[in-house]
């Protein structure tokens, strides 16, 4: 066996993996290959899952949807939209990042990366919305966990483990997601011209209110020109707060925000249409559209973010000037790293910062060289790596599923 195999259903997937298990042959798992994420791997066989596609059951009144893992995410979003529902983790379209065009990829691919959008800090990550799954492990066995109900503690919560495992533990075949009602209405409150430190303070103030902010991001003044929205002045830094809910309640809360930030002169409010556009652009990382450099995401305790920015993103005195933006009310920084320095000294420095400040970095866009040789996640605890290796072995004893995708040698 070599080349690409494109099975039609779970039975065929299971048979293929069983045969590969018997023959000790590793497999690279892809669906639409929209997310060249993780370390690159060399396998003679590719398992292409795009044909295992389609909605199995959608129960709007039960708030769940059950789909085959190869289903294009965009199809799922459209079906949910017809019932005014959506996926609570606010799916991210990384197509812009990789080649400048929309490409949500498959639900299986997105699940394997545990990708969540701007609403994450309020509504949870993708893994919080995955209710259950069926998958094929590295021995070709079909396994399942979870179900279609939200409250479930029957056995280990394997859904959590498989979300974000980058196809290294099992091949997902069916997924059940919790769905949520679409917000009735939304507006975005914008403060202009704050410096990063002030912006982080503004996040902290807003997050200590009961205004239920459901999006909070910051674009520095050098990274706003791509925000081509009528109602945004893109010559200044933008600190934005999203408020969602029934219209009257949204407007009352916007008034409250205006009062809280009354001493800040320059501000504006984006109404529904512009607001939705703004958060779509943000979720999809459009500021890095077609980037030719590395892009990393760094998850931090919000109080460490201002310090991180002055060290690695922007600092006039130190002449540091990298393209970046901050999401999750200060909890997440997306940073572009110049690809010209082949030693990636800055990555080592960021890793050190992360270790000291309880943070971590994940490279989401890398060149081929770094994907072959570099790190993808920054785990420095050897004991975690040992445990990760044992977990990998418990699902995939011969290490044939995406070997080395997350950690070299695992």
């Amino acid at each position: 066996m070599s080349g690409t195999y494109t099975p039609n259903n779970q039975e065929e997937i299971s048979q293929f993996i069983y045969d590969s298990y018997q023959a000790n042959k590793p497999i690279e798992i892809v669906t639409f290959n929209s997310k060249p994420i993780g370390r690159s791997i060399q396998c003679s066989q590719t398992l292409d899952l795009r044909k295992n596609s389609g909605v199995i059951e959608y129960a709007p009144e039960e708030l769940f949807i059950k789909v085959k893992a190869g289903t294009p995410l965009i199809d799922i979003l459209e079906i949910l939209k017809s019932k005014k529902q959506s996926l609570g983790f606010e799916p991210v379209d990384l197509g812009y990042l990789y080649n400048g065009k929309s490409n949500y990829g498959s639900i299986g691919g997105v699940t394997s990366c545990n990708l969540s959008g701007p609403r994450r800090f309020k509504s949870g990550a993708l893994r919080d919305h995955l209710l259950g799954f069926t998958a094929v492990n590295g021995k070709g066995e079909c396994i399942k966990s979870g179900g279609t109900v939200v409250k479930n503690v029957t056995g280990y919560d394997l859904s959590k483990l498989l979300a974000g495992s980058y196809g290294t533990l099992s091949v997902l075949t069916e997924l059940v997601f919790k769905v949520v009602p679409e917000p009735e209405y939304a507006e975005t409150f914008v403060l202009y011209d704050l410096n990063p430190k002030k912006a982080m303070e503004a996040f902290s103030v807003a997050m200590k209110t009961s205004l239920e902010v459901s999006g909070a991001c910051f674009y520095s003044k050098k990274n706003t020109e791509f925000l081509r929205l009528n109602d945004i002045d893109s010559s200044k830094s933008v600190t934005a707060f999203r408020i969602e809910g029934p219209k009257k309640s949204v407007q009352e809360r916007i008034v409250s925000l205006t009062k809280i930030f009354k001493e800040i002169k320059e501000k504006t409010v984006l109404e529904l249409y512009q607001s939705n556009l703004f958060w779509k652009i943000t979720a999809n990382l459009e500021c890095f559209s077609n980037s030719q450099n590395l892009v990393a995401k760094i998850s931090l305790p919000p109080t460490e973010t201002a310090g991180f920015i002055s060290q690695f993103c922007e600092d006039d005195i130190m002449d540091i000037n990298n393209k970046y933006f901050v999401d999750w009310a200060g909890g997440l920084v997306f940073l572009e790293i110049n690809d010209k320095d082949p030693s990636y000294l800055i990555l080592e420095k960021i890793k050190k910062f992360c270790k000291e400040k309880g943070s971590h970095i994940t490279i989401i866009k890398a060149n081929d060289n770094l994907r072959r040789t570099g790190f993808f996640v920054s785990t420095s605890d050897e004991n975690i790596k040992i445990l990760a290796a044992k977990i990998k072995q418990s699902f995939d004893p011969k290490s044939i599923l995406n070997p080395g995708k997350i950690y070299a040698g695992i």
Partner: protein
Amino acid sequence: MSLIMPEPDQLTLDNSESIIADLRKISKNVLSEEEEKAVYETDGLSVHRQRPIAVVLPETTKEVSEVLKYCYRNNIKVVPRGAGTGLSGGALPLKDSVLVSLGKFNKILDVDFDNRCVITQPGVTNLSITGAVQHEGFYYAPDPSSQIACSIGGNISTNAGGVHSLKYGVTTNNVLGIEMVLIDGTIIRLGGKNLDPEGYDLLGIMTGSEGLLAVITEITVRILKKPQSVRAVLIGFNTNDDAGNCVAEIISSGIIPAGMEIMDKPLIIATDNFAKAGYPRDVEILLIVELDGTESEVDTLINRVLEIAKKNKASYNRASESDEERLRFWKGRKAAFTALGVISPDYICMDGSIPRKKLGNVLNEIASLSKKYGLSVANCFHAGDGNLHPLIMFDSNNAKELKKAEAFGADILKYCVKVGGVLTGEHGVGIEKRDLMCEMFNNDDIQQQLSLKKAFDEKSLLNPGKVFPVLHRCAEEGRVHIHKGKTRHPDLPRF
């Protein structure tokens, strides 16, 4: 009642004295007298009792690590314990085990409003976390009814839920990090004050692992700001079906209430007698719906809920006019278990989860099973998320009644699975539902979970005999669900 547990290890039992002496070298809090151990012989599932070799109450993570390392080297079983309020027997000691109680890990370590989190030791009670942050208007969202007593470590281990989980999630959605000790003594820290730890989601797998994978010694949880306005409504119905339909319609209309609970007549009366909650006594089913947000939002939503209730033939409604009144509505519901204790000498509490639209169905099935077994039942449900707690009443002085009650409970859970639900929504599998696991999972599913267990604990020393059917039991009883008449890969190992 006879309960099959893993065969006690004779060598360990013979060495009890020296094991106790060795443990005393590690920790100054080792209990070995019978009367001292009696306190720990059972948890909230009190029909089962067993004393361990010794109870250790370590005071530091290092002590936990040393105790575990010692047990690992000497092949001694370990059972972790929080506050012992668990309802599935998860903290039941084994005869040849050392019970590790986290009772002395009772300090909150850091309250961090800027990062909106609290770092705490696992023995701290659920309610104390809210207690430590409420002066700034914050709270910790998951609120099990046992919150005054249960420990946050136990909550993580059982993935506890509460009446507000519908909107704010269960424990797993509210934990940011933990420190844990593996059975060989290795100390590992996962996550922290930032979101979504990298690599495999070990935090996710630890949550709800019922003490089988590691001992949790420190926890970081996120805290939320209290909503501006909260109101609750009581809605009464005459039939199960009307109540069930009302719940389904509220959810499908796009409203996510902060909480939505159901009680049936026996509990309405029992809780109202007990807590003077002001419930209507002439309805068959009572629904409590709580809504939160800004004032105008809450008022709008209350009106929408009342409209839906009217459409579904509600015979009673009352919206809370003050926070005092709202809390009184909850006082009854939260005292459900205690109130029932007043009217029945013993009861067992079941915990299935079902699709919301099957609520009416399942209530009717429970009623007919109640007739079949000749045992009374009272029901309280986390209706919003389809999590039911039928309380089966019996008299433990009558040995036959306990057996009947357990069979009744098992039938309810099997019915839950049959209508698309699961065996346990929040109380965990423990020993109680262990032997029903094959109703939900097939051999490959269970085998996969067991291999994951081995990745953490290859000697199977940590809380053995819990969650999974004891070796071979599933297969021997012929209950392995064989897919399409054959097992798929007969050459692969089975349990």
